């Protein structure tokens, strides 16, 4: 497989996963905006969404103070925002076109149809009430592509690069989503354990399509402790940090077997997985959730960087 092809495949799935993150963030923002505010007004919540998506500076430059309608546009349709849903879908499709021969017709079809639909959506008049539909569209489109990959792609090296893109990006994304809690709660630490706190954790679970799964897995009372365990340390949760690292490790191992060599990126992931797996939730809370997540996101960025030297 051409190195360029491997790199493109890796980025196709990163962009798709990132499109999904942006949609999930929008959903969190939308839901949080529906509830009585935690004291500082909805503006604060929307700003936190912007920071988590890494879009705060770009947004400020273009629009100034946060305003729901502008933020929604900036995060969904705006091609000036490199992480908007529209940008991610377009780039994923561009990358797919460049490696057209490495994708099955079904995967390409799912990708290309998504892109055509997106262009259609961009033409329709925007209205805040459409937001949930747009988020649903993004999630289902990403799932469709994912499904086409799982059921039609040849499971060779390309399949591993696609999956590495998914899991490395998803690990980053879950960490970022969790970090919203830090931003939203920061102004009022006293709110911990309150109604609002409970509602925010629930919103996070919902945004990760994990609300019901969480109930099944833990039962009883929903506590921050349990939710954090679920999203960070529970390998059974498909969006948890540990799950993503575990799956990435497996794909690295497959590559090692096929290419007959280890790589730096592989070792970095294995190390991060072992370190994270050895932690307890209490430890993480003591260290500070935000500090833990900031460190984690930096590690993931370093792994992404080392993919280039290791394979491309």
């Amino acid at each position, binding site marked *: 497989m*051409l190195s360029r092809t491997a790199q493109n495949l890796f980025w196709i799935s990163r962009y798709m996963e990132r499109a999904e993150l942006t949609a999930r963030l929008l959903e969190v923002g939308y839901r949080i905006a529906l509830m009585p505010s935690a004291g500082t007004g909805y503006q604060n919540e929307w700003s936190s969404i912007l920071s988590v998506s890494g879009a705060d500076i770009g947004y400020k430059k273009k629009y100034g103070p946060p305003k729901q309608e502008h933020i929604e546009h900036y995060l969904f349709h705006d091609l000036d925002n490199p992480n908007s849903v529209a940008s991610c879908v377009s780039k994923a499709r561009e990358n797919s076109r460049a490696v*057209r021969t490495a994708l099955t017709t079904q995967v*390409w079809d799912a990708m290309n149809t998504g892109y055509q639909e997106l262009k259609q959506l961009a033409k329709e008049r925007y209205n805040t009430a459409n937001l949930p539909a747009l988020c649903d569209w993004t999630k289902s489109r990403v799932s469709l592509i994912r499904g086409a990959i799982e059921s039609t792609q040849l499971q060779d090296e390309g399949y591993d690069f696609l999956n590495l893109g998914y899991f490395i990006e998803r690990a980053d994304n879950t960490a970022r989503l969790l970090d919203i809690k830090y931003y939203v709660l920061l102004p009022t630490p006293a709110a911990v354990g309150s109604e609002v706190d409970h509602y925010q954790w629930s919103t996070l679970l919902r945004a990760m399509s994990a609300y019901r799964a969480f109930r099944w897995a833990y039962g009883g009372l929903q506590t921050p402790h349990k939710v954090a365990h679920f999203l960070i340390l529970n390998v059974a949760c498909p969006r948890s940090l540990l799950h993503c690292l575990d799956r990435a490790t497996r794909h690295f191992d497959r590559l090692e077997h096929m290419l007959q060599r280890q790589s730096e990126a592989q070792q970095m992931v294995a190390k991060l997985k072992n370190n994270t797996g050895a932690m307890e939730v209490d430890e993480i809370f003591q260290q500070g959730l935000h500090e833990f997540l900031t460190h984690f996101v930096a590690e993931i960025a370093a792994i992404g960087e080392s993919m280039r030297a290791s394979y491309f």
Partner: protein
Amino acid sequence: MFDNEEVREPYRQVIDWVHSMPADLVAMKHSEAEKLFRRIGITFVTYGNNDDAERLIPFDMVPRILTAREWRKIESGVRQRARALNSFLLDVYGKGEIVRAGKIPASLVYKNPAYEHEAVGFQPPQGIFGHIIGTDIVRTGADEFFVLEDNCRTPSGVSYMLENREIMMRMFPNLFQKNRVAPIEDYPEILRRTLLSVAPAKCDGEPKIAVLTPGAMNSAYYEHSFLADMMGVELVEGQDLFVEGDLVYMRTIRGPERVDVLYRRVDDDFIDPLCFRSDSMLGVPGLMNAYRAGGITICSAPGVGVADDKAIYTYVPEMIRFYLGEEPVLNNVPTYRCSQEEDLKYVLDRVEELVVKRVHGSGGYGMLVGPTSTKQQIERFTEELKAEPEDFIAQPTLALSTTPTYVEQQLVPRHVDLRPFCLVGKSTYVCPGGLTRVAMKEGSLVVNSSQGGGVKDTWVLVE
């Protein structure tokens, strides 16, 4: 629109079939076809059109039909030209006998911008320069076919030929049950075998093929990826290749991997920045050295363009007589060479009746169709013609044949041309069919997709 008298026999069934379908069903099928094309991603990119950079070529669902007898003539004519053109190329990069015999002016060959000095004296594997040739043919009467031009460099359109058929078979299976249509789906496999048969001297073992594309922004990118995919070979860009010693390698996740045969869809000027345009980002430095050292076969061979030049074209009948000792099966369109004084005078006297073309232009650009042009267009073009007459040829406007075409919910006659594809390796193959391009505008003779032309499936009936 069509009296039965006017419509040739093979079309009657198809027309009856279109008429037997309720109008809304026809319209639905039509839009279904468009959707399929867009979904599969069969689009082409037009340069400098940012609005909707990826456009769809209009697809007409009424097939173009050729009988077995008609096809026999086309096929043998195309085959004959392919042989003559390859003999010509081998000759002009070797001894130049045709020039010495005074059949073609030396300056036209050796001073031609498409004549590649880097290719002189090198004999490619099997002596073949043009491996893939697309011959543009028009019809003017029952048995009158004329060749408009030969395309030896990187003729495109074969992916449309194949996909048009796929889509027709998917949408109208019962039409194929009623008619016996020669299959074309072997084309990619025969292309692969053709490329394998011209492996270079230094290749040991099973030759490795790759398709070289300028990249996803190229107008024919879909075709490049389609062919690579159908052949099961890598689609590479210049940046994926490098030369070491006399050999060419791809950069892969397993390390360097050798390439033996390169089906390139990049023009001569861009394939090697060391030999040709040093600003080219599309090529591979050192590729020509490896080629001349027998480390890689480049298909079509560098320098092939001198054979499909529009000025050389007028001499193809001479080539056929000179190399093969045969009379041309397919005639050229009578052509005036504006480089010659009498011809130029003739052309200038009646520009408004003629089609005038730039010798080195392509894709319907740099061309004037006299009868459909305005006075100003003619005047402007005449100025250009007078300034550099040797850059132009002129041809009479032919009474091109028309075929039934579905436009605005009815069948109307539209002008068509035909590009069959010929593959030349150890053996020669002409795919039974080709790309039919159709001018969608009433009366228009310009079928180029860059000028709004459409495409049709092309049927060769089996006896």
